[in-house]
């Protein structure tokens, strides 16, 4: 299986490095890219798609630079941008046919894939509806369908679950999990549970660098001993909230009892260590952005 190799990949905007000296290999499987806003996820994805030229470093597919592969590389690629716009006068099938032309599919292949994908993303009923009348979730599903239209070897999805309701998110997860066999899928999202459910490997991105990578279990291990729960009253909870990173706050039973889930290396008295989740790992790495311990 060919791999996507990133070597010292850097993208600078004047003095600011959006992606900073990133070296990484993406093989077969689903990679979940997690990071706060401005971490460089979209810039990285754009460079992987060949839309943005790196300031330094290279992206190679099967050992050859993607810029050199050009059309050959783009034929292997499926991409869903974060701000996915479309021609509003098209219907869903018309839009997919247009993208199919740009992707170089034959008419027969276009008909087959269009019908198949519209059914898979639950848009077969939307037939003649113009895209201007689509809801945010419907447009997002159409975006996912267009990305998969050419049966790409490399699928790059920037915030694919944004605007999807829980049922659609589950449908999307199943679709990607099925699809990923023998392919490289990179998806970024703020919804940690989506990544947790389908990603084989998590890449945690911060200030243009990958600060942590591994399976969900390996990532959870990095936060072991840093996640605590504490049962307290409302007044103490308010005081703890100001000092610690709080992953969860839950009112328990009657009265003013509160259960707090804290991310810290220095827990308060009475706190009990618990099993960390991926969300805890995320909060642990980005706690300093909130200025808490």
């Amino acid at each position: 299986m060919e791999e996507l190799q990133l070597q010292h990949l850097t993208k600078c905007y004047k003095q600011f490095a959006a992606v900073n000296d990133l070296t990484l290999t993406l093989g077969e499987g689903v990679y979940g890219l997690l990071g706060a806003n401005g971490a460089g996820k979209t810039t990285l994805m754009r460079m992987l798609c060949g839309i943005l030229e790196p300031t330094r470093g290279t992206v190679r597919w099967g050992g050859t630079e993607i810029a050199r592969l050009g059309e050959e590389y783009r034929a292997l690629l499926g991409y869903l941008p974060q701000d996915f716009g479309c021609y509003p006068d098209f219907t869903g099938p018309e839009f997919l046919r247009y993208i199919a032309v740009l992707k170089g599919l034959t008419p027969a292949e276009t008909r087959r894939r269009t019908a198949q994908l519209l059914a898979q993303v639950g848009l077969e009923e939307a037939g003649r509806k113009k895209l201007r009348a689509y809801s945010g979730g419907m447009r997002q599903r159409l975006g996912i369908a267009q990305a998969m239209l050419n049966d790409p070897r490399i699928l790059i999805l920037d915030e694919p679950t944004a605007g999807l309701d829980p049922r659609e998110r589950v449908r999307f997860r199943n679709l990607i999990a099925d699809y990923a066999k023998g392919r490289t899928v990179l998806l970024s999202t703020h919804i940690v549970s989506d990544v947790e459910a389908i990603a084989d490997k998590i890449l945690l991105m911060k200030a243009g660098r990958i600060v942590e990578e591994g399976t969900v279990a390996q990532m959870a291990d990095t936060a072991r001993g840093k996640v605590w729960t504490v049962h307290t009253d409302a007044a103490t909870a308010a005081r703890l909230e100001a000092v610690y990173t709080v992953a969860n706050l839950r009112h328990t039973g009657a009265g003013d009892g509160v259960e707090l889930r804290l991310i810290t290396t220095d827990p308060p008295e009475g706190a009990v260590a618990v099993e960390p989740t991926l969300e805890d790992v995320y909060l642990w790495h980005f706690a300093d952005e909130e200025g808490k311990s």
Partner: protein
Amino acid sequence: MTPRTPEPDWGALLRRDAPPAPDPAGPANTLRLLRTLPPPRPTGWDFVRSQAGFIRKGMWAAQFVVLAAVLALVWTGGDPGSDLLYRYALCAGAAPLLLVANVQDLARVYHQGMLELELATRYSLAKITAARLLIFGVCDGVLLAVLAGAGAVACRQTLWVVLLYCLTPFCCVSALCLALLRRLRPAAFAKAALAVAAAALVVLTLPAGRIRRHLYGLDARPFWAAALILSVLALAWQARRLTRGGLRTTL
């Protein structure tokens, strides 16, 4: 002396090694294999044709109105005869400027979110633009021929002569414009294409009256025909290279 190896009984072997019975799963296996093969890709021309729907209606309308207005001036003004052919040639030589004027518009993506999508597909935005330009240019030429032909019939001119004097300068200037388009960046292209069209018009207008009469007379027609053939070949070659390679840069 080594004993001679007896010949095998070929007849018995052939009878024994009969071809196997047809495998009932064979056709299904072949179909399965076919499904795993990558589908054939359409040719560049299919892609070019598919782009026709993405040129704005307003641009088509403007193209028709401008050409019709200019040709109406040709039909109504001045004396008929060789002077009319001269005016046709001038008008046709300037017609590719319609395309030059529309390069930026043809290259534009009207919905910002589409830009990222179109840049990441197999056919690059540069190729999309090239295809749209080609369609627009071909329609420009066809429209010019149709309008000039209609005018020729209405003014009782010989149709093929009018077409000859229209299409030759049009194809020459278009071929040069396409060659420039492949090599230059958009800003430089617009200026260079204007210069080419201006040069063509100067070549057509500069000769003195006597020479001009010869240029549009009966004797000159074989030369015009030869120039038309050469320019059509050059245009086809440039168009082919443009659709295969796209433009030098995204616009």
